């Protein structure tokens, strides 16, 4: 996989035009503003003028409506006592908001509130640790100038992404176990004299969110840097040169050029992810959670699996799905609004 320098230059040259505007939020904003006024009006002439763009977008829009929005009639299940044996959705017994009331205030109400908190806790921690970790790693990798070495590093760090969660959970539970069971974390802590006796990590509720975040970080760190590294390629190298001429050091360049350069990517990913905060990874709490720590371990998805699917209670699963969707849209909307206020890249 050695590359002829010539083709590199061509490839990179091809990228060049993309580089400039990302660099400065101010200029982008100016451009947006300039376009704003005429854009407001939707006139027949404009529609005609944009018929090519419409031809590109409208069929796909209809496609998306058919495949994603039409099936949403299935949410009716949330308002029914759904039993597959009764035939299709129209033949079911309607129960109004009973399922919602049941979930939020019923016998499981207190428990449900707790699993929401757990989901949020695990998820926010995972997102923060994961994002910071990926950005730092991308910045550090960017400082590696030996290309083959850098490639090998990248190829290795993204590998854990391909291990299944069953295997990762298995590895994590061994790593966290007693030294006699292969628990190397305890071994390391003891040999460094940080602890005297081995710690039973998976019996202490307060460690669990951290364990989830740490395991996620390990598995997805390399994978998550991929987008940031791609974004870094889009930064105009002349900016670095100019900065060097101004006498900027390595850290100055990192913070003043690289980081702002990938900011649109960071912001967009953060907004997107903010909506998935209630849709955490299911496997870790499922495989690593146990009775002693379930008060911190159990998440919405685990709860829904056990009280929904396993008991054939489809309605409960749909109610939880609707709840997650509503929360997601509120969160994404707020994050998007916040980004707009700060003149950052937005989703919509």
């Amino acid at each position, binding site marked *: 996989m050695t590359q002829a320098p010539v083709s590199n230059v061509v490839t990179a040259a091809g990228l060049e035009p993309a580089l400039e505007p990302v660099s400065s939020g101010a200029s982008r904003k100016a451009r947006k503003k300039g376009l704003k006024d005429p854009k407001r009006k939707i006139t027949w002439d404009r529609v005609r003028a944009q018929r090519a763009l419409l031809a590109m977008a409208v069929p796909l829009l209809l496609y998306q409506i058919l495949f994603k929005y039409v099936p949403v009639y299935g949410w009716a299940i949330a308002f029914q006592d759904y039993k597959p044996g009764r035939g299709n959705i129209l033949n079911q017994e309607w129960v109004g908001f009973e399922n919602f009331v049941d979930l939020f205030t019923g016998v499981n109400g207190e428990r449900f509130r707790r699993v929401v908190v757990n989901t949020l806790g695990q998820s926010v921690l995972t997102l923060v640790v994961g994002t910071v970790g990926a950005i730092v790693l991308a910045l550090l990798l960017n400082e590696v100038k030996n290309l083959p070495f850098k490639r090998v590093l990248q190829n290795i760090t993204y590998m854990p992404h391909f291990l299944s969660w069953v295997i990762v959970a298995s590895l994590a539970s061994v790593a966290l176990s007693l030294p006699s069971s292969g628990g190397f974390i305890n071994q390391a802590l003891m040999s460094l004299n940080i602890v005297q006796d081995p710690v039973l990590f998976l019996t202490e509720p307060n460690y669990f969110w951290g364990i989830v975040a740490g395991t996620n970080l390990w598995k997805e760190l390399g994978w998550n840097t991929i987008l940031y590294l791609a974004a870094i390629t889009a930064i105009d190298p002349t900016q670095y040169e100019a900065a060097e001429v101004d006498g900027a050091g390595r850290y100055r360049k990192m913070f003043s050029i690289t980081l702002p350069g990938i900011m649109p990517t960071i912001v967009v990913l953060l907004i997107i992810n903010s909506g998935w905060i209630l849709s955490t990874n299911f496997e870790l709490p499922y495989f690593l959670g146990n009775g002693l720590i379930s008060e911190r371990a159990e998440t919405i998805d685990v709860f829904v699996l056990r009280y929904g699917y396993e*008991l054939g209670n489809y309605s409960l699963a749909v109610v939880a799905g609707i709840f997650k969707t509503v929360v997601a849209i509120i969160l994404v909307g707020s994050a998007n609004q916040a980004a707009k206020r700060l003149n950052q890249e937005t989703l919509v």
Partner: protein
Amino acid sequence: MSAGLVGCSADDAPDEPQDVVIPEGDLADQSGTLTPSNPTTITTWITSASQVPANDNKITALLEEQLGVTLKYEIVTPDNVDQKIGVMLAGGEFPDLVGTTDLKMRLLEGGALLPLDDMLETGDYPNLATHVEDDINKMSYSGTEVDPGLYIIPNYNRFYGEITGGTYYGPAFWIQKRVLEDAGYPDLENMTLERYFELIENFKAENPETEGIPTVGFELLASTGREWGMTNPPALLSGSPNNGGVIVDEDGNAEIYADKDIARDFYEVLNEQYDAGLVDPESFTLTFDQYTAKLAAGNVLGMHDQGWNFQTASDSLRSAGKDEYTYVPLMPVYDGVEPWYADRDVMNTNQGFGVSASSEQPEKALKFLDIMLSEPWQKVLSWGIEGEDYEVGDDGMFVRTEEQRANARDLTWRASNRLEALLDMLPKHQGQFSDGNAFSPDDQPTEFFETLTDYDRGFMEQYDKKTWREFVNAPPENPKYYPAWNIALSDDANQVNQQLTDANVQHLPKIIAGDPAEFDANWEAYVGAIGNIDVQVYEDAINAGIQERLSNW
């Protein structure tokens, strides 16, 4: 969709059964319904952990050659079946034969299956008719969602002749053979919890390490879905058979036992043993993998479990030649109680094949099940082909060579020479064939003895026993309703059952691992948590099920 199409094309022929040629031999269908001259494609949907047979499978070839039957498989593993059943029912189209293992009988209640009573009454299906004759009430659906009647032909535990076999797969407090050997093969009658732990304690004191790793006294698996290792003992200790979460008295009244004194006594002992260092502190965090690895390492002296659950670990120890680290079942009980650990195998009335309501050839599909239940085909499916997969001794008994046994253990070989997924779901001639051979090699007494190692032989001689089953109680006649654990529950009762399980999983580890001084407080908290659950709903549902069985079975 494919099922429908295949059904049509296969149905073209039967109106004019010209040139029906019935092959010679006892594998052919003498009624002429399924013959090579009128080929039939039967679509099947099977819940099974087994694989699709290989393309070159020899039994597949035999089916075509003798019956003209081509099978099309759709095999869904138990892990995935919940989702698949949901969408299949919504879609309303099913293959000819539907093989389900769903405890909640969703396919049946969802109207996916045909009632079979009338079809069996025609007399066209003699093997099936005989098979269900004695137990038709047990096998019949008695719920309210569809008309009562026979819909599913159970796949396991309808026995013919004597029940044979030497290995015990049921629940027990297991102990390593070396512990008993070291203690001079003590008497195992009238075992108590105290004596059980004493044996372990003494051995551990003398052998703090096993092959360089610390010896573990007692292991407990509390991992989600297998938590019964922790919750079932109180019932067994008090002489009740495995009825799941309830104890049923002689009048057929069921009651949960989780918060009763028999449970308290057991967990108090465990708490003391934990404090004394005999119970593995990692017990409650073990995944099933880690549990298996611990047992396979050979340093765990004992545990409560069901035999089938730790097969992999036993196999691993045996293959490493460490027979003394493998386990024997013990049956500790409370004072004045007869142990009832081993029960008589119960029929899985909610598992097996049914003929789908959307099949276009239900007669042929049912005929296929009937032919498969004939003794000649049962031998082919279970033992294989004579001379290839087993030999017949002068006395007419089947035996296998070492190579044939090795083949049967080989997943790859089995894909080409067995129809495991199909057999898993078919009704079976378990027990004995009319010639005295056992239904399967594993139940054949000679096969059991031949495969015993010298160590195991010697061990058994010390106790003057010939099989592992003799180490547990002789199973008494099952109560009429038995077992309560497979009574189908209403949604509400299921939810309560789940809440009870959750309370167990959350509180019992704290009770066991807690400071003995706080045992009472921890126990009270647990009883309080159970008190907050509407247990009555669950008990009522179980009791209704028992009463219904008592009057119908």
